[in-house]
């Protein structure tokens, strides 16, 4: 794994929120292509701030970040949007599915800012829905689905453009343990296929299932634990 291309590079990153709240102190982190890693910490530890920075949704107040080789401080807002469109897939705790759209349309929306024509978006959505095992749900609305199925739809939307990096923010946070296990298995599948996956979680069980864990506490990285050798 150590030989992989660097997908995420944080160097001395800090985040000071307006009003003087320091959310992150001097965090350095390198994630290589093909890794599956958990960022673990209790709520308020700064892990959500870290996710926003990794996802280029926010900028650090100190330090430098590079995503897939792009130095973020050299990109303007439109270029950051382009980076999110092409390079990063997001999975959120609250799913964020459009209630008025069918499952396949929700998934196809993952490509709507990539300049892909609608017919090809829908074809890609059908393919990725098959991969997450929800082809039979294509024409349903999100409210007709269980929580686990909704999160699988959100994962399908995140990976429809085959981004090299998937960021999952508490992906099992709103799910019971069985549905959570299915979602987690799906993230492992993505990892097996070579996608770099970063999971943010406060759940120790979820964290234990991941090959690499970075623990955040009070805005600082306290542990970076890798299982270099299988048990």
């Amino acid at each position, binding site marked *: 794994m150590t030989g992989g291309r660097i997908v995420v590079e944080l160097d001395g990153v800090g985040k000071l929120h307006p009003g003087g709240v320091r959310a992150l102190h001097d965090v350095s982190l390198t994630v290589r292509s093909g890794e599956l890693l958990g960022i673990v910490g209790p709520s308020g530890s700064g892990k959500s701030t870290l996710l*926003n920075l990794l*996802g280029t*949704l*926010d900028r650090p107040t100190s330090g430098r970040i590079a995503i*897939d*080789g*792009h*130095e973020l401080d*050299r*990109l303007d*807002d*439109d*270029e950051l*949007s*382009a*980076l*999110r*469109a*092409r390079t*990063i897939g*997001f999975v*959120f705790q*609250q799913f*964020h599915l*459009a*209630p*008025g*759209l069918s499952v396949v*349309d929700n998934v196809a*929306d*993952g490509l*709507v*800012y*990539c*300049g892909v*024509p*609608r017919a090809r978006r829908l074809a890609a959505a059908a393919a990725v829905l098959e991969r997450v095992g929800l082809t039979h749900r294509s024409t349903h609305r999100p409210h007709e689905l269980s929580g686990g199925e909704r999160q699988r739809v959100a994962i399908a*939307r995140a990976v429809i453009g085959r981004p090299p990096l998937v960021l999952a923010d508490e992906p099992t946070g709103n799910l019971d343990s069985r549905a959570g296990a299915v979602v987690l298995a799906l993230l492992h599948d993505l990892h097996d296929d070579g996608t770099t996956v970063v999971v943010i979680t406060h759940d120790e069980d979820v964290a234990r299932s991941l090959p690499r864990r970075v623990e955040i506490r009070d805005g600082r990285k306290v542990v970076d634990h890798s299982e270099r050798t299988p048990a």
Partner: protein
Amino acid sequence: MTTDRPRLDPSRTSPGDLVRVAGDGLRARPMRVVLSALGIALGIAAMVSVLGISSSSRATLDAQIEALGTNLLTVGPDDDVFGDEGHLPDSATPMIGAVDGVESVSAVAVLPKVKVYRTDQVPEAESGGIAVMAADLDLLETVGTHPVAGSYLNRATRDLPVVVLGHTAAARLGVAGVGPDRQVFLGEQWFTVTGILAPTPLAPELDTAALVGWPAADGLGTFEGHPTTIYTRTDPDRVTEVRSVLAATANPASPDQVSVSRPSDALAAKQAADATLDSLVLGLGVVAVVVGGVGVANTMVLSVLERREEIGLRRSLGATRAHVRHQFLAEAVILSVLGGLVGVLGGVLLTAVYATAHGWPTVVPWWVSAAGLAVTAVLGGAAGLYPAVRASRMSPTEALAGR
């Protein structure tokens, strides 16, 4: 490092996707769409129907004037400098008839202080505003009307106590038909009604007149036989030319005491006066549309506040600020134009119903509909601008957090 920096393919959407995404946003809240488009629809419907109804009525009037002819000129005495009612010389009628370009000429004379009543029992004051006039035998050809019942005066009846009633006059006197038993009390004696005229748009004064033969009028009141109105039909191509000489011809001694008018102009002017009411309703329509626009702005502001998470999601999917701004602008424009479309259809429908009920053709000029839609598009853009800019400036992280 800068040299081998990977190139970034920018975020892109097609205009079709923009409209589709905006439409999805609206479809998710159909009730709100209906309610906020309603104000605009009502305003546009009011404007389109007012313009449509006045166009339809104008088309009818134009056809009517066309049928009546625009070559009728009316000559009458003007009030003199002392405010007394003047009169035309007896010679005026033959003199005008001799003018080159005049096709026919016919005079009437109002009999001063002579009144007509339904019976001899009616109090004197209740004369119903009906003027008694002496009339020439060729009057109908000149003014372009015809009897709806009975017949007009002729050589045999002009000396007799018979009367032909104008359309309104007959109604006021309660006379529905003609015959020896249909009599009215005119100037202290009984006259038999032998004819009732059709409405005469170019000479509306005849509608409220009771017409008797010139010789029969002789014995009535203080009648002196001076014509009070001379109707002149001219060659259609020489109206202006004839008009310019009429005053001097009618009263060579004092042409300034003669007024010459063209009744078809008066009809058109009446239409123009009705247009004042049109502009009032039109103004109300504009107010309604503007209020509708404020409603759309309100809806969009609310929508942006409610949909912060969607905005955050779209930013995470790669939407630029411009994409978000365009999405909400497009929503506002679609919402507004939707209202405009319904309004135009409603306005045309209203026009059709109203025009059909009046027996008019339905005429809605194409530019009215086009302008209605254009106005709503611009209005939607204006209404959506502030909310759209506001949506585009949200920080993605705060939007995602619903803050």
